[in-house]
């Protein structure tokens, strides 16, 4: 708000100074950026490359940089959107409950592979970040990255990571998993849609699930199940895993 470089006209500048001081503007640009990014995503046939999180955030950062806004100014408006993450996290209980019926005969293999997947996802990223000289903050931000964003951010905050960094890592993990997973299944000639779906949901949450639905409805459904269960498992296992690894490393 200090230096609106884009607006030379003094009249417009006055309006800008007035508006940017109110939370209304931060809220509005967030909604506009989301709307535009979502359109682009649908236009590209829901390609993981055009993930709406990446494009909307790039757009927002562009606007904030061009208008010389600080994050605090922006967040004064965006906090209203941000606050709804709490109730939205609770809302995930509904799909989680609805997916439980799919477990029926497969509950044992799914539970075992889920626990392995969650522990390996968290453990390997903590271990690797530690090996490569990443700070504790980075390691903790990476640990819950395979869970869906609101859950991962909630865990990160409580184990000493940075929730906003975790949000970015969650999105990047989702995109990586969606692209890498699909290739990996081709190379390994995996045909079983159930196993592919479970692996995708555990490693790449909602973004992987969106990709899985493009492959087959069965893979999508199991990915959705795995994503819901992995949020649950990550919340229960990762804080404990972190303590264990802290004692070892």
């Amino acid at each position, binding site marked *: 708000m200090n230096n609106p470089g884009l607006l030379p006209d003094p009249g417009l500048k006055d309006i800008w100074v007035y508006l940017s001081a109110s939370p209304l503007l931060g809220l509005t640009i967030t909604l506009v950026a*989301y709307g535009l990014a979502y359109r682009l995503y649908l236009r590209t046939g829901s390609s993981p490359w055009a993930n709406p*999180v990446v494009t*909307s955030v790039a757009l927002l*950062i562009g606007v904030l940089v061009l208008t010389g806004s600080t*994050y605090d100014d922006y*967040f004064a408006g965006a906090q209203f*959107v*941000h606050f*709804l993450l*709490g109730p*939205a*996290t*609770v*809302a*995930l*209980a509904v799909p989680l409950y609805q997916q439980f019926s*799919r477990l029926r*005969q*497969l509950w*044992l*293999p799914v539970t*075992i*592979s889920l626990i*392995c*997947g*969650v522990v*390996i*996802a968290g453990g*390997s990223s903590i271990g690797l970040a530690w090996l*490569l000289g*990443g700070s504790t903050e980075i390691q903790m931000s*990476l640990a819950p990255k*395979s869970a869906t*964003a*609101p859950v991962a951010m*909630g*865990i990160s*905050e409580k184990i000493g990571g*940075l929730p*906003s960094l975790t*949000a*970015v*890592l969650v999105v990047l*993990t989702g995109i*990586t*998993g969606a692209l890498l*997973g699909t290739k990996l299944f081709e190379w390994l000639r995996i045909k*079983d*849609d*159930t*196993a592919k779906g*479970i*692996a995708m949901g*555990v*490693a790449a949450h909602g973004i992987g699930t969106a990709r899985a639905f493009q492959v087959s409805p*069965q893979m999508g459904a*199991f990915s959705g199940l795995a994503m819901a269960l992995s*949020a649950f498992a990550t*919340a229960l296992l990762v*804080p404990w895993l972190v303590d264990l690894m802290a004692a070892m490393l």
Partner: protein
Amino acid sequence: MVMLRGFLVLTAFFVIGEALRVMLALPISGGVLGMILLTLLLMVRGSISDSLANASQALISVLVLLIMPGVVGVFFQADQFASEWLAIALALLAGTFLSVLTTLWVMQRAVAGRPKAGTGE
């Protein structure tokens, strides 16, 4: 008004989750605790009210919007991680790769180990 009732259930469980977290000093956020409690309640009850289903659907469909303000924040803290981006990128790539591979392998092993496992739908 119907959706508001569902929203009230969500905020109520959020409040209960927060209260439990503070009282028991748990390392999990109030939202996640609320999610776990509500899931358990739904499993016990065995049904979901329309208002709760609608309110949840409304919030979940805009999850991307809800995480945007947090994600934008990283850009303003980027200097802090400038020296660590390689460690972050490698840990992320390898971690994701390993977790896909492990889950897939264990899942296939576990299903193959069963005499006549269900094949889903």
